Structures are given as structure tokens and as C-alpha cells.
């Protein structure tokens, strides 16, 4: 297993390299001057020139690329053009918020989506199944930022149950602040997970071993959860992986609407301000998480279905 993980990690290096290269090129192609963004549109030309010099923006592009790669290998992303704070500090301050949001919303999404999916699968073509179909359709169609704005207006502004801005301080205040943003993402995830669970469980419930279990007189709950859901876990774990990645990317919009700190908001600000070091580090973080989540899901498959290990 360790050899497999190492092999997969090694596999990730070219992917990261490609992502870094694409980000570097994209940022240089994008119109807009980082010096102007940092010092303001009416900044003194002398100061602009000094800034470009100090930040190495006057170097030939191939040289900038080599410096950039060398720094990336050493995990040194330099300092933000805008705030002059080390990028590592910015990431360290924002990343926990994004991870926290992702974990809470994925957990909420799973807790809502999986039982709902099982419930619908066991009542095929009956009202609960139809309800899930409608819920899933809404969940697939509604954009996350739109749902966020609606929830914000209803639950924060109208009912006053949740705060509107920020991440709060301390555990309980933090939890209070995260519930609504997490619920936004969770509702979308649960629509997806519910639909996936329903399909997977339905497929499994038609298998011979389920029929055998029923013929042996097993209780329906045991049939569904022990024989049905457990065997549906393989496609579900793929879905969970996709869900985590979608939540990470969805956090960008949610962090903006709820004005929460996080990598998504950091990246959006950095892009509008042409803050190259922050963009490069932020995108690399996202790419790293995509690779990590995929790797973890591969490992999870082995535990969920030991036949995979045997085949490999």
C-alpha cells in the first residue's frame, strides 16, 4: 500500500508542474500591470519602475519562470505584491477556513443526501422518490452564489438567525458563522449525493445476494444497510470525492457572498489585483488538494472493496 501511495504521489509531480506552468503563462498573458494594481492607477512612474524592479517583473519571462519554478520546488512563494506579507502566511491564515467549510459542508451534505437517497430507493416511484427527483433537479440547476444570496436574505436578514459576515471568533461563534455557508454548499451536495445513492442502492437491491438475504429472512433494515448500502459504497465513495472537490471550488463563491476568509476569496482578490505570488500559491494549493483527494479516494476504494487490492 505504501508503495502504491508513493507511486501515486510521484505521479502527481508532472501534474503539479503542468498546473504551475499554465498558471505562470496565464498570468503573464492576462492584461493588467501588477505594479499599477499594487500602487494604484495614478501611481508615480518612478515608484512603479522601482516596484517592477524590486519584484523582478523586469526580468525576461524565461528567467522569471525559472525563478518561479525554483521557488515553488522549495515551497517558497515569496511575498504578496499587494500586502507585502509572506504568501505562506496568507495561505496559512486562510486555508483552515476553507478546509473547515469544506469538511462541515461535505458532512452536512452526506448526512442529508445518503439517507434521503436510501429512503427514495426503497420507495421507488412513490412520493419520496419523486421528492428527491425534484430536490435533485433544483440542486443541480441552482447556482451556489444564488442559493447563498437567498439563504443569506432569508435566514440572516429576515429571520436574524445567522450572522451575515465573517468567520467569527472562538469555536461556538465560528460554528454559528459557518452553518449558513456550509448549508448552502451542503444543499447542493446532498442533491447530488441523494441521487447517486438512490441509483447505486437501487442497482444493488436488484442483485442475487440481496434476494438471497431476503429469502433467508433477514430484516429489511439489515438487507438495505448491510447488503444494499454497503455494496453501493464504491460508486458512493467516488461521488464523495467528486463532492469534496466540487465543494472546494464552490467555496470560492460562498466565501465571497458570506465575506468569509478563505483560499477562494484570497484567490479572487489576488486575481483582480494581479498578485502573481498569491495566485500561483493559491492555484497550487487547489491542484494539490485535487491530487490529494483523488489519492485518498483511491486508497478508500481498496478498503471499501478488497477485490481491488487483490486485482492490483
Amino acid at each position, binding site marked *: 500500500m505504501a508503495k502504491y501511495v508513493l507511486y501515486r504521489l510521484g505521479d502527481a509531480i508532472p501534474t503539479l508542474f503542468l498546473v504551475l506552468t499554465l498558471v505562470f503563462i496565464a498570468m503573464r498573458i492576462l492584461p493588467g*500591470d501588477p505594479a499599477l494594481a499594487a500602487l494604484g492607477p495614478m501611481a*508615480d512612474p518612478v515608484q512603479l519602475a522601482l516596484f517592477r524592479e524590486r519584484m523582478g517583473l523586469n526580468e525576461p519571462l524565461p528567467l522569471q519562470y525559472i525563478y518561479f519554478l525554483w521557488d515553488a520546488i522549495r515551497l517558497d512563494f515569496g511575498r504578496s505584491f499587494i500586502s*507585502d506579507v509572506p504568501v505562506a502566511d496568507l495561505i496559512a491564515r486562510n486555508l483552515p477556513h476553507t478546509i473547515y467549510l469544506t469538511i462541515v459542508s461535505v458532512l452536512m451534505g452526506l448526512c442529508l443526501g445518503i439517507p434521503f437517497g436510501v429512503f427514495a430507493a426503497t420507495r421507488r416511484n412513490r412520493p419520496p422518490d419523486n421528492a428527491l427527483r425534484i430536490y435533485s433537479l433544483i440542486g443541480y440547476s441552482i447556482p451556489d452564489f444564488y442559493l447563498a444570496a437567498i439563504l443569506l436574505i432569508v435566514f440572516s436578514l429576515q429571520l436574524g438567525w445567522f450572522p*451575515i459576515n*465573517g468567520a467569527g471568533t472562538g469555536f461556538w461563534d465560528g460554528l454559528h458563522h459557518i452553518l449558513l455557508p456550509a448549508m448552502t454548499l451542503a444543499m447542493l451536495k446532498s442533491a447530488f449525493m441523494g441521487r447517486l445513492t438512490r441509483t447505486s442502492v437501487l442497482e444493488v437491491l436488484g442483485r442475487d445476494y440481496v434476494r438471497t438475504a431476503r429469502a433467508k429472512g433477514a430484516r429489511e433494515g439489515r438487507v438495505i444497510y448491510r447488503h444494499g448500502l454497503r455494496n453501493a459504497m464504491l460508486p458512493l465513495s467516488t461521488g464523495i470525492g467528486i463532492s469534496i472537490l466540487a465543494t472546494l471550488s464552490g467555496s470560492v463563491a460562498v466565501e465571497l457572498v458570506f465575506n468569509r476568509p478563505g483560499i477562494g476569496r484570497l484567490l479572487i482578490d489576488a486575481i483582480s489585483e494581479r498578485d502573481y505570488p498569491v495566485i500561483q500559491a493559491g492555484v497550487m494549493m487547489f491542484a494539490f488538494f485535487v491530487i490529494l483527494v483523488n489519492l485518498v479516494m483511491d486508497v478508500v476504494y481498496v478498503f471499501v472493496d478488497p477485490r481491488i487490492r487483490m486485482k492490483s
Partner: protein
Amino acid sequence: MITRRTLLGTAMAATATGLYAPRVRAAEPDTLRFANSAGGPRKLDPNQITQGADSWAAAQVFEYLAQPADGDFGKTPDEFEPWLAESWTTSDDARTWVFTLRQGVQFHGGYGEMTSEDVARSFIRARDEGVDSSNYENIVSAEPSGKYEVTVTLKNPDPLFLGSTVFTRRTMIISKKAEQELGEAFATQAVGTGPYELERFDSEQGIFLSRFEDYWGEPANIAKVECLYIADTTARTLALISGEVDMAEGVRQPGWIQQMQQQKPDLQFDMTVPGSFNTLFFNLSKDPLQNKMVRQAIAHGIDKQMIVDALQPMSRMVYTLNPPNYPTGFSEEDLPEELRYEYNPEKAKALLKEAGFGGGLTIPVNTSKREDYSTQHLIIQEMLRAIDVNIELTIMDHSAYHGSNRQNANTLNINSWSLPPVPLFVYNVYASSAANMNAEGTGGGNYSHYGVEMDGVDPLLQEMLQATSFEGYIEKGREVELKIQEDLPMFGLPTLSFVVARNPRIDLGYEVTGGNAYWRFCRASITTA
């Protein structure tokens, strides 16, 4: 892609469907919360601030040697009042300024009493190390001439020195000792003498201030000030309506104030007049804008009153580069008739025909997606269509827009900037050949290439620079203003006020009529809990 408009639209839709009945939260009893429209604070050191939003905190923490009454700029030298300086004298040639400092003024954090060393250092660092250092090149020296006396010597006379240099963000007075001791950390932990001191600089959430108990003057009424950063318009708006914040930076787009008033009728709106100058630059290096008749036709094709009406109540009419309430600005009546460029589509068409464009013409123009820019460009596009001038508008993000302007890639760009009533400064950054923008991106804000592609106002600016009296300075400035109006390398569009929406529980303690796009809170009070 999320846009502010989409999100605000959501809020509006909810309003329309009756979902909306905001529940006002209980506000902190002795805290004023202000929401900026920026992602997060960058710097607090007044000499390093590059983001306007950070000036709000700086204005509470730092002070000037002299300043006008709260709520406006000082437009003449006699409108400035002693502040950290008790008095000052100036030489006949307006080159030497001696300031006598107030005694007993304490810096925050136990950094001791303010002396002439601190003041001299504040001026010198603005000249040598600040982000606008070239604006302070006129300072030859700033030296202590006693423990409580500073002598500033200038290269050229400056009868408006108080407005051009003393009352500017870069020369707010800092503690020299703190600067030396804190080193790089001074950027976010800068130490001043103001009525509020820094409690916490949180780069994700904001700048948190508390009342400075050893303040030399009248202590601040409200114990705490929180300068929060909420870039998203919807989030900021909802925070204000719900009472989570007391004041929030407004959105400069048509109908915003009216929409807000519908949702919360008791909201107050403070705004600066003129606020931002909006200047339309004709790029004289691009065809056919070298042709003065084409420029005149465009000027006659723009109905400025319509722009004012569309952006009411934030917009004010201008007739020249400077607004009428500035010393070198002109009212309509003061201008010769041929320089008024009144809206006259027929005259515009005739001028185009005479210039050889009777069949109309097409001009590609870049604009920023920021509301104040795109709104004006879209209105102008529509107006010019009526005179057969087709504006092919490309809307881009704000950084890309300014990047394209600085690389000579635009033709009719608008620049919006909150400029002080310091005429020489305005002309130096917009109209002097030294500020000529060049395609390498290393030039200044003269996007027209005025003084390069055609004769400009450099000789007049040299004369203005040598004026030793305020009256002489203004007289020469008005000549510059008329010359620009006649040559028409740029065209003043209606101004746009900087707007802050305020919960009525906060009384600012004074009326905002003009001034910088940030103001002080020390006289503010909470009228209801």
C-alpha cells in the same frame, strides 16, 4: 461568474417577492463599525498606503500639522486651522515655512511626546520613501529648528503648501522612534497621535481601533472603531441593512441610493462634492482624435446633464477640467461661449462633416467593468451614436483597463480620481508633458499626450510654479484651465461623489460636503442604542 449586479439583483428579487423584512440586529453599544469595499487591509503606515480603503483607519490614527474643518478640503490657505502645529509663518517668497508645534502631544503605545524630530522625519520620508515621492520633490529640507519648531525649505515657492503638502496622507505625523524600533512591522503597526489607537490589524477582517485615552484634544466620543472590509456589494449592503455595520461605502451606480432608501428609509447618505473628477482623455496619438474638430464634435455630442441626471444625487456638473467649486474651476457663465461645448448634436454632426467624417466614424474604446466607469462609458456610447460616432466598447476588469490605458492601448479613456483643490497637482499629473503616458507603461497620467503630440501648457505651468502669492497662483491656474479647454486634449465629465451610507444611530458630529474619500470619527456619537 458572480457579479455584484447579479447578487444585488437577487436581493432585489427577494424584495419584490415580499421575502424581505430585514431584522435589525442589536448593535454594539459603544462601537462604530464601518465597512469598506475592499478585500482586506494592506497597510496602516500613511506613507505606504496604496488602497484608499486603508485611509479610513489612518485618518483616525494619524494627524496633520494643519487641516481644514472636518468635512471638506481647504480651498484657500486661510481655510486651514492649526492642528499638531499651533502656528506657522511663511517667507515672502513662499519657499520657507516654519511650524511651531503643539506641546504635550503624546504618541500611542507609550512612544512619548511628539517633537520636531518626528515631524521632520514624517516630511522627509514622504519625499524619499513614499509611494508618491515625486509629489514631494519640492521639499529641499525639513529640519528641527527647536524642540517644538520645524523649518521646511522648498525648491520652488508654494503659496498653497498647506493644501499641497501638509494636508496630505503621506505627511501625517508618525513617531520616528516607533518607525525605527518596529522596522518592517511599522507598515501595519504604525504609531500616530490621533484620537484612536491601533488595537488589532487583521489582514483578513479589518483594522480595530480603540479610543486613545492620552489624546491631546477632545477625546473621541465612541470607544471603539472597527474598519471592516467587505468587498462584495451585496454582503456589505445586507450588513448595513441588518445593522451589523453602522456605515458602509456606497456603490456609485445609477439608482443605488434610491434602492437603499426603499429598503431602509431612515438611512443617511454622506457624500463628497465634487468627489472624483471624471476626465475623458482624447488620445492624441490615435486617429482621428488628433483632429480638433473631431474632439469638439464628441464634446458637443455628450449631454453632460443627462449623465448628472442618471447618477443623481451623486453627480455634479463640471464645465472645465476642475469643478466649479475649486479655485481654478469655471462656472458656465464665466466661460467664453465657444468653450462651453454645450450639447448640440447638429453642431457635432456639422463638425464631423467638416472634418471629413460626414458618414460617421468608429472608435474602439476600452472601459472598466467597475460601475462608475462602465456606466459613464455606456451612456456616452449611446449619446455618440446619435451623431454617428460608433463606440466599440470592450469592458474589461479594472486592472486590465488601467493596464491598457498605461500602454497607450485606449482611445477615449475615462479616468476617475478624487483630486484635491491643488490646481498645480492636477495639471502636473494630467496635462504636463512630464506626465506623458508611453506605450512601455512607464509614463504618467497624461493619457492624451498633451504637450507631446501638440503644444501644451508646460510654459504656463512653469510660471504657475513660480507664483509666490495665492492670488497669482490661481490667476495663472485659470489661464491653464482655459488653455486646456481651448485645446481640448481632455474633457471634464460630471463629477461623482464618494458616498457612504450611514445608520441614523450614528451622528458624525459634522456635515460632509467635500474633502478626501475618508473622514474622521472622533466627533461621531451614537444617538440611539
